[in-house]
């Protein structure tokens, strides 16, 4: 660490929600008082043992935490380099890491006396997780989902409806996650008096990036302890896929001050970085959207570009502000993986470990396959298996030219 770097990488953001130049609260005036109230309430909840106990109890008995830490012997052998371990967050209730955050946020909603829940969703995993906690606590729930995503994620749409949520297909813009977030914000601004917006990733106006990170950090806290218990040391490299970046920040954050642990965040390179993609850090520059300043895919006038990824959960032209900061200060390395590489990695994990991963962590697995052979056999890679792939089998079949 050189003199220009902070004493700790774990004390962001500042009181205004800034991670260096990123983050902040770029919202309409109507939402400001609510954002400030949420911040005050979250500060209180953080130090309230009752809140923490309820959160942890639900994670244990409802979500099924702690999730296992798994050594992948056949994948390791096939790659012929570093030992590959997975944090198995795909085994959570609802099949992804998204539920960790939803439990935390709905407890905040109830604490604040809100009686109606809204959320945006891309792949549908966050929508399913939100609909799940809304059902669990008996609150009405509206999920905004891009019409294009509704088409390609029918099983999750049906799940959400089974769970009692109203799913609103969003027809504006590119009809994907970014547009769903616009419509969720429009709903929120019109219903601030009774509505809580459960944002699904570590982005949006402060305090969302902070609180989503905190709720997801259970992933990294568990993994760090499990790894120490099992191997007596920390991993050499952490790998996680990034759309907005909540599973990645959840894994990375508890390790940020461990100087020997390297980290690699993987963005979606779609058809390739010179074509359509969703890699905001690799192909974007800082700008303001959806309440925060962060790297965005945009043109020179600041108009937001459409993102593309085979994975609906990564198909977003921005990224959480803490990742933008971690990139700029160099603590975390970021790279990208194409649709084709992710598809190959998806099949690789199915074949070698008997695990069907979601397309989102398939991007992380592809990166693992890229770097593991270059590392020593005594080194350890820990990748976040943040979701299971049942929802993606139609997309994958289609991409492989198989008719179901």
């Amino acid at each position: 660490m050189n003199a220009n770097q902070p004493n700790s990488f774990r004390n962001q953001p500042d009181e205004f929600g800034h991670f260096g130049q990123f983050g902040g609260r770029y919202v309409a005036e109507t939402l400001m008082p609510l954002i400030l109230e949420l911040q005050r309430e979250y500060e209180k909840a953080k130090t309230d043992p009752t809140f923490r106990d309820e959160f942890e109890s639900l994670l244990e008995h409802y979500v099924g935490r702690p999730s296992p830490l798994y050594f992948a012997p056949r994948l390791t052998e096939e790659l012929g380099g570093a030992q590959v371990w997975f944090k198995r967050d795909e085994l959570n209730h609802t099949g992804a890491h998204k539920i960790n955050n939803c439990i935390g946020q709905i407890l905040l909603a109830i604490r604040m006396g809100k009686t109606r829940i809204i959320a945006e969703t891309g792949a549908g995993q966050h929508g399913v997780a939100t609909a799940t906690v809304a059902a669990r606590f008996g609150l009405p729930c509206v999920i905004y989902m891009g019409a294009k995503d509704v088409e390609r994620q029918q099983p999750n749409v049906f799940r959400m409806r089974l769970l009692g949520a109203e799913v609103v297909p969003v027809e504006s813009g590119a009809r994907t996650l970014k547009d769903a977030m616009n419509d969720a914000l429009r709903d929120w601004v019109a219903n601030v008096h009774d509505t809580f917006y459960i944002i699904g990733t570590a982005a949006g106006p402060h305090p969302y990036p902070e609180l989503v990170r905190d709720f997801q950090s259970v992933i990294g806290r568990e993994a760090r302890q499990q790894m120490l218990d099992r191997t007596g040391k920390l991993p050499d490299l952490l790998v996680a896929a990034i759309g907005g970046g909540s599973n990645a920040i959840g894994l990375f954050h508890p390790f940020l001050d461990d100087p020997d642990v390297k980290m690699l965040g993987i963005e979606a390179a779609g058809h390739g970085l010179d074509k359509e993609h969703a890699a905001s850090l690799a192909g974007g520059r800082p700008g303001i959207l959806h309440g925060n300043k962060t790297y965005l895919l945009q043109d020179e006038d600041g108009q937001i570009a459409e993102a593309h990824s085979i994975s609906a959960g990564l198909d977003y032209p921005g990224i959480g502000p803490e990742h933008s900061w971690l990139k700029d200060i160099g603590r975390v390395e970021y790279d990208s993986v194409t649709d084709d590489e992710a598809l190959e990695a998806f099949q690789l994990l199915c074949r070698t470990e008997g695990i069907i991963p979601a397309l989102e962590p398939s991007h992380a697995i592809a990166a693992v396959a890229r770097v593991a052979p270059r590392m020593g056999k005594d080194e350890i890679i820990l990748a976040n298996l943040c979701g299971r792939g049942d929802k993606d089998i139609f997309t994958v079949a289609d991409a492989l030219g198989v008719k179901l």
Partner: protein
Amino acid sequence: MSRLAAAFAKDRPALVTFVTAGDPTPDATPAILDALVEGGADVIELGMPFTDPMADGPAIQAANLRSLGAGTRTADILRIAGDFRSRHPDVPLVLMGYANPMTIRGADWFASECAQAGVDGVICVDIPPEEDGEIGPALRDCGISLIRLATPTTDAMRLPTVLNGSSGFLYYVSVAGITGTQQAALDTIEDAVGRLKSATDIPVAVGFGVRTPEQASDIAKVADGVVVGSALVELVARHGADAAGPVRDLTGMLAEAVHAAR
């Protein structure tokens, strides 16, 4: 006296009109702006289109997409503003839009371009007082008003934050919601405007959901100005490049109703 101050200093309420720049095309906008002036608008708000207009309802969302679809660039908007200033030396012109297109080349760049184009004020929907550390000073240094929004959720504790650094006029968003939605009840608006006026000397204009001359007249009885946007933008949607005539007619009726309200 600045052009904005003069527009509100007349012994009558002011009509503030909004259209989106470049809707339906950049070439069509000057005639539509002229129609607003000819119809009797006192202040012109020119919307800067954005791909993600989070605070706007369907009418203005569609206007943003039409404009961007026609290839409108920031340079076109600044040119439209500058040409307007040449044709109408005395009519105040305000740019309204979202943070990213305004700040992407730096706040200083934007402020100086606005000054050069003769823009009088800027409304940035998603830059609250807490985040205006760059664009606020940049605009002020160029003599451009930073027009802030107050809403039904802006309570007494927060109002001083909003008013601090606010200039030109205060835009009261009468409903918690997006543009073009239902109008708030008149007595609620009257109460709110009363509270705002007791806290500030700058004029208070009321917008969101004002569509007809009757509604405009009612609000003009209690406020310094009335903002009409979606109703005009819908005329542009319907008549496209031929919208100037209908826009002039509606503006005329609105102006008459507002100016005669008290």
